[in-house]
């Protein structure tokens, strides 16, 4: 099969022309500017995943929120469910970049980690 897949690894957004089969996977990628496209295209066709980035309210911090991300991408169709899982979550200052705010937050193996330092107010 042939597909056009826009690589979203970086802002260049290469519109990759892909040849692939269900059994044999990706056999050919064209129109890409770097190698990262191969891995992305394969993932996008067989197991699409996305990084989730959002924020969690903080008690007692010098910021009212701590920005967070899934430490690895989560299944694309789980994005809105993941927001529900985060739901009422609150964090407490101090927080350091990389601190796990909620381990394995949707059972996919991804931890929710802080992307900002928040000091005690």
């Amino acid at each position, binding site marked *: 099969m042939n597909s056009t897949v826009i690589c979203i690894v970086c802002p260049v957004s290469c*519109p990759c022309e892909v040849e692939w089969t269900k059994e044999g996977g990706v056999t050919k990628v064209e129109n890409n500017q770097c190698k990262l496209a191969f891995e992305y295209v394969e993932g996008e066709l067989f197991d699409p995943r996305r990084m989730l980035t959002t924020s969690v309210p903080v008690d007692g911090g010098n910021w009212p929120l701590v920005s967070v991300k899934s430490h690895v991408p989560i299944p694309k169709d789980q994005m*809105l469910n993941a927001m529900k899982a985060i739901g009422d979550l609150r964090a407490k200052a101090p927080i350091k970049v990389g601190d796990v705010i909620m381990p394995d937050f949707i059972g996919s193996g991804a931890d929710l980690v802080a992307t*900002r330092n928040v000091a005690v107010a």
Partner: protein
Amino acid sequence: MSSHEQADVAVIGGGPAGLAAAAEAKAAGASRVLLLERDDRVGGILNQQVHDGFGTKVFNEALTGPEYAAIYEDRVNEREVETWLKTHVINVTKDRLITVHSDKGLRTIEAGSVVLSMGCRERTRGAIGTAGTRPAGVFTAGAVQNYMNVRNLAVGRKVVILGSGDIGLIMARRLKLEGAEVVCVAEILPQPSGIGANLVRCLEDFDIPLYLSTTVVEIHGKSRVTGVTLAEVGPKMGEKKGTRRFIECDTLLLSVGLIPENELTNKIGIITNPVTTGAVVDDSFRTSVPGIFSCGNVLQVHDVVDYATMESEKAGTAAAIWATTGKLPDADIKVSAGAGLRYVLPATISGTDAVDFTMRSWREEHDQSVIFKSGGEEVRRLRMPHMEPAGMIRVRVGKGRFRRIVNNELTVEVGA
């Protein structure tokens, strides 16, 4: 005046460009580097950009804005750059005498070199002339990003976004994830303004419709926005009759372009490029005024922070060299944008070192090349599978190629 200070290099603006320039100026041998920032923290817009995708060129991984900013903030601190926060530059003279306003009073700084890295601001409703009433609920996308991600404030529940710039697309996803209804994104141009990756992960992933060649022709609501009227536009941006439709919403986000903040640049009397509105610079990022350099979004609007960082590191290095030695290679070779390109930077080069040229195309192009020519002969050619106005093109040309330049002129164009 309260005090008078001296510095080798003074960097104006502590966003990603200023952080990179200051850190490299220090590394390149400037003994006192001042980073002047008007906000109460450095990092600029990165502090509010909690999404990922930063750092793929510099660090080979996708970081979030705060993570990317933290790396450079640590770097300026380790290298002992002096950062003055809540410090507003009110004047810079051609002799590099800077006046700043802060809670310490008015101070002057005599700087060996000055780096202008003030960034850009968002185009507003007033500037694009959207008709209708003037209710609450009309915000620029970046302001909403700040309210949501820095100040924990939600601006509305049912949102229309005008303009498909990257911040608008990012905010479409952010609002949707947080439970708002994002009715649609309307773009007046026939092609999107944001990059392809954001169209995929911010709109397609969430089934948010993007209407091209469509704009908001009227805003409704006396107190708070109650809706907008959309209409399609023809090739000359005129409204197509019979295409008006009312869309109910409580919020209108504008993502209709960025304007480099060159008020200070113009006040100094630096020559600017009418296309970018930023300074005309050489390959050391020198402006027309000796000892004053410009980099980052105030020079040209970038869509990839990594490139702004790389550009600013060079500017910072050059600023330090100029401040400490007074010498930088003469840039006598004139570079001009030819067919297919809106602009190319830098405007002049020395030819003594490799140059990263940055440019934007007029149109979306497939399977074309960027061609460097001098005296009618090709100097370098790079095949581009895909070019679009939304994506800055960056091409490195090694110094060996510059030997082929004749008459000190180089043209860059798009061709087959």
